[in-house]
């Protein structure tokens, strides 16, 4: 029995090709948290560790361990996620709205 979501990769503006499952996750994050303002989310995300990556998930991965240790987490359909990685998925979903992907 494979995992439930089966989505095609999508081209996200300014990011590149992303697994469609990540976009679906981002929509769930937005639905649960109500955080749907792209600029606010981008400001809340950590800076890219190398200063050059535009991928919010990659940038968030650098701080997830610290956030988990601090209890800075959010629960999405039972999944306990670091707050930045959840926001990063939400950013991808927002970038894909309005037919952008």
């Amino acid at each position, binding site marked *: 029995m494979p995992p*439930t979501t089966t989505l095609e990769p999508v081209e996200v503006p300014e990011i590149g090709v992303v697994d469609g499952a990540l976009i679906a*996750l981002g929509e769930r994050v937005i639905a649960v948290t109500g955080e749907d303002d792209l600029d606010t989310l981008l400001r809340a995300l950590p800076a890219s560790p190398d200063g050059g990556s535009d991928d919010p998930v990659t940038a968030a991965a650098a701080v997830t361990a610290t956030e988990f240790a601090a209890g800075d987490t959010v629960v999405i359909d039972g999944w*306990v996620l670091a707050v930045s990685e959840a926001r990063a998925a939400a950013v991808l979903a927002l970038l894909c709205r309005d037919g952008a992907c």
Partner: protein
Amino acid sequence: MLIDARTLPTGTVGRADICVIGSGAAGITLAMELLDSGRRVLLVESGGQQIDAATTDLYAGESVGRPIRSLTQEIGLDAIRLRFFGGTTNHWAGACRPLQPVDFEPRAGFAVSGWPIDHAELLPYWARAADYVRITDAEFDPLVWSQRTDLPPPVLDTAMIETIIFQNTAPTRFGELYGADLVASESVEVWQWANLVNLATDDGRHITHADLRTLDGTALRVEADAFVLACGGIENARLLLASTDADPAGIGNETDQVGRHFCEHFQIYAGFGLLGVAPEEMRAFDGTQVTITEGRHAGFVHGVKHAWSLTDDHVRSTATTGMEVQLVVGAHPEIGWKQSTGADAAQIGALLDRGGHPAESAIYLQVLAEQPCNPDSRVTLADARDGLGMRRVRLDWQYGPDDRRRILDNLRAIAEEVGATGLGRLQITPGGVAVGLEGAIRGEFLTAYESRPDEIDEADFPIGVGFHHLCTTRMSADPAEGVVDADCRVHAVDNLWIAGSSVFGTAGVATPTYSIVALAIRLADHLRDSL
């Protein structure tokens, strides 16, 4: 010698140095330990060699509190315990591990807690108990087991979560294993089909004799220097409450503690997870088999497996209760689990991939959690009578929102620790797990579980039991907080001792039978030395 009590004339008096009531794990271990002690032992068993409907019915009673249920169905008080030779070991699942040091310590915020002995006191008895329960030895360090076997090393050990070892010994039926030794002994008499109906006393301070009855009406008595109740965590309390010669509240019940603090182990379908560890490195959660090489059980094959547990330091520092997590492992993404709605394993897998820590294993989490003592969770007597004319048991198992809160907090903490270590992500779904019938197919085991995050119910998620009945005659230094002293003697009675899980001072979260056997060995030593 084996005696069918139904063949004895009414009025028969048995005489022994030590009378042990009950032939389960505790009673049989006691009798075995006393075989060469020079003491005459009379071991009393309600049933015979096999299960019997009329005898089993003596265990029926009222469950008026929280339901006693597995995670799938409610179970009667006459089904969770077995009343024939070997007792409940006749359906024992065989999971062995010792209690933890923190279990013996007083814990802030609980009504009563701790034991008047410490963990180190039981270490030599766990070592001796290993042979009785048919495990290799008292070694429970996962690193040692990785050296002894092909088990991989622990995938997780932190200040909060430690990897623990279970030695699994099913089937180990004490009646089948040790009955022949007892029957052959000249110092032991086994009376089957005899039921204790009263511990007779003139003053409540000393047992003069035990009144026994058979279901066909034969009345017997046993006179002994010492009496030991070893009838299980519910029945021990019931028999004390039913013995009212000197006090209508029962014997040993001056401080109204008999039957209180009934604890179970909470069992929860907790959730799922994705870990960045290859299934091959996770196979210790499935376990391996080892063969006992020495002693009377040489050649017996038993299991060894990993699980996770909250560390003692975490339990102390957060004033919480213990928790064990069993992991069922499949490969991700070949084996996943069904999910009704919401963020699923594929989405989280994509997140982990993108973050540079791809998931390799999918896991299902089954949790056993500790219940703190609660004086309102208790065994009392019902008005209804059984086939012997005795009042049936009434069990009022109680737990509350604080217990659920601790479970949820601990699950969240474990999920955060798994994230903090970079191991993966957990989905905590109490109330949101459905179990399918295809679970018997090992290779597709995880598909037997369906995640239903829309059904998560933090206020009322299902809580099953571990079928462990604990603390109803708890061990305490202060008679106001328990029933037996550090030697397992009933505080107020000079010749009555109790064996079994009813004497646990704090429930802990470890499966109890191994510790029941260790305590019985310790009690045998005490009786041998003190009588």
